[in-house]
């Protein structure tokens, strides 16, 4: 595996292609040395790259999932403005300063700090996560292909494949993507560059069409900005309860999600590999092009498509009868008006609870329950808005995201079994991603998965930050693996594992506390609710930073006692 390929592996999830970054950002040189001045690049080189990279298949799921999570207009718009700003500032003040000083790839820096064995573990973790992400993108593309063949689509809360048609569709789409990734990765990458500006404008078109549809269906006349805000609040992003099975998203959820969804790249330091080519660290402001095109405009536009689907979905007669007969809230509602109203999350939740009560009372059989959560099918949403162009966008968006992701995962796995051919490993990785794509859980829980991805890689970003800026101030040695010729820096490894352990305990706290209490171990306070996965990486980063210093102090002293004297910093 070349150093460029290793750097590609330590690249970012969901982006169009890191290896192309290298080609478009000065070639595949300088993998084990600082980038010299003659190879450094200006601001414009980074703007286009980031703008295209963050308008991808993931946006088609994330935007609608915000609506499913019950965001209000203020929460979404202002939360995204702030969260994306925090992401840009993270690139500017955490990643780029190190990148433009050290001018090394993340892979090489990690190797110096952590040792080759630990970096292999890091790559394995990255590879597994890439596989699942690629699987989610195969799911996205499959929803567009399946629509053309009238395949039954999985539901929002489905974890397993729900029909033979779905299984066949995913297998065919996944196999094609895997074979092309193995044979023709570069060709698809070039195609992704061509598709990128077109995709950005199709996403914009999604939002514009959805806006017109909302204006027509609500008979709204826009005479001022307040009319737009009124429409946004009352019809598009109404807030309130999330759909059953979804976590309620508040302003802070949106903010932290937008900030941390690319945590692997900024706080996790993957984009050291990109910004090592920047002449100045301020050029990291170019990431704003990606954040505000992809993670603002595209997310908002995609969310409007699902909000429109919800708005146009009305309660069936069965649901109206159920609510009228059994719900105190709807008992006095006019049935005709209720049947014409948009089906809200509150209505669905109420109706589901009524059905469950009827089942418990023996009045209704479980298999006769008919109330279900609306399906979130990107192919459907895009087709309703922009016809065949929308379908093509969904297929291409999912494909051009899955392609480099499978390639990167393949490189990561090949590092562990280096004698295996690249072609075979990429094919097998694609097969694994396809299997993952069969299970709609990853795509439907993409908000949680993206947060998990960031959490897994965040501790190593803290290690890089601390090792570069702080460790010598404590009288300790930086780049300790290179200095001591260790292939596994135990301090870095323990920092990673312990941080992950603590974060996992915080996220699963309630489950752990209840499980222990049931077994008679009342060890944990019941009034603490834990920390949601969307927020845990912030305290986790600080924990990892402090832990790395403390463990390094112990570890370096221990190693020096047993062996060579320390070199001066």
């Amino acid at each position, binding site marked *: 595996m070349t150093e460029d390929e290793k750097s590609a592996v330590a690249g970012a999830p969901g982006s169009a292609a890191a290896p192309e970054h290298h080609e478009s950002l000065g070639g595949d040189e300088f993998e084990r040395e600082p980038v010299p001045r003659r190879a450094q690049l200006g601001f414009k080189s980074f703007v286009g790259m980031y703008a295209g990279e963050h308008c991808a298949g993931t946006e088609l799921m994330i935007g609608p999932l915000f609506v499913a999570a019950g965001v209000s207009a203020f929460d979404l718009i202002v939360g995204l403005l702030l969260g994306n700003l925090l992401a840009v500032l993270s690139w500017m003040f955490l990643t780029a300063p190190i990148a433009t000083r050290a001018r090394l790839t993340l892979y090489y820096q990690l190797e110096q700090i952590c040792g080759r064995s630990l970096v292999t573990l890091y790559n394995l973790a990255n590879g597994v996560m890439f596989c699942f992400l690629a699987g989610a993108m195969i799911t996205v593309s499959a929803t567009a292909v399946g629509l053309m063949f009238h395949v039954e689509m999985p539901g929002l809360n489905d974890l397993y494949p729900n029909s033979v048609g779905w299984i066949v569709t995913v297998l065919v789409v996944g196999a094609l993507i895997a074979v092309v990734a193995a044979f023709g990765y570069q060709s698809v990458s*070039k*195609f992704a*560059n*061509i*598709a990128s*500006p*077109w995709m950005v*404008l*199709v996403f*914009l*078109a999604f939002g*514009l*069409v959805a*806006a*017109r549809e909302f204006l027509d269906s609500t008979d709204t006349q826009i005479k001022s900005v307040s009319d737009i805000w009124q429409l946004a609040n009352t019809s598009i992003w109404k807030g309130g309860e999330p759909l059953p099975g979804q976590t309620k998203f508040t302003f802070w959820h949106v903010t932290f999600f937008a900030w941390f969804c690319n945590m692997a790249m900024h706080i996790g330091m993957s984009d050291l590999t990109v910004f090592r080519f920047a002449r100045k660290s301020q050029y990291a402001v170019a990431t704003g092009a990606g954040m505000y095109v992809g993670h603002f405009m595209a997310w908002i536009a995609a969310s409007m498509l699902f909000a429109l689907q919800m708005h146009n979905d009305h309660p069936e007669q069965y649901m109206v009868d159920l609510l009228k007969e059994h719900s105190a809230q709807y008992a006095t509602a006019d049935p005709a008006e209720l049947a014409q109203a948009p089906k809200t999350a509150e209505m669905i939740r109420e109706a589901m609870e009524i059905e469950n009560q009827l089942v418990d009372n023996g009045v209704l059989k479980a298999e006769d329950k008919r109330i279900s959560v609306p399906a979130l099918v990107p192919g459907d949403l895009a087709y309703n808005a*922009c*016809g*065949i*162009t929308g379908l*093509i966008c969904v297929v291409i968006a999912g494909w051009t995201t899955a392609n480099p992701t499978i390639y990167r995962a393949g490189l990561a796995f090949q590092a562990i079994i280096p004698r295996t051919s690249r072609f075979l490993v990429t094919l097998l990785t694609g097969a694994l991603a396809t299997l993952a794509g069969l299970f709609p859980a990853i795509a439907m829980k993409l908000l949680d998965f993206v947060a998990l991805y960031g959490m897994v890689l965040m501790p190593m970003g803290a290690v890089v930050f601390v090792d570069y800026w702080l460790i010598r101030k404590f009288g300790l040695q930086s780049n300790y693996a290179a200095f001591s010729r260790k292939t596994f820096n135990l301090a870095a490894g323990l920092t990673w594992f312990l941080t992950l352990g603590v974060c996992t305990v915080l996220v699963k706290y309630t489950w752990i506390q209840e499980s222990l209490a049931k077994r008679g171990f009342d060890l944990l306070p019941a009034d603490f609710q834990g920390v949601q996965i969307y927020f845990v990486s912030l305290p986790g980063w600080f924990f990892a930073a402090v832990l790395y210093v403390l463990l390094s102090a112990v570890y370096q002293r221990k190693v020096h006692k047993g062996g060579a004297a320390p070199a001066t910093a």
Partner: protein
Amino acid sequence: MQAISWLSIVGTVLPSVLYLFNMLSLDACKGIMLCTTITWFVATPLWMGREVKPAT
């Protein structure tokens, strides 16, 4: 050829703008978008990413 590409990319989003302002029907919007999409993907590979040779 570049001019054709850029016209087609403008044509990808322009129908939706016209639809927003009630100047075009949704079916026409979808139809035009499909035509401009095909034009973009046919014309653009012919020039994007190719080295520009210096004039002799």
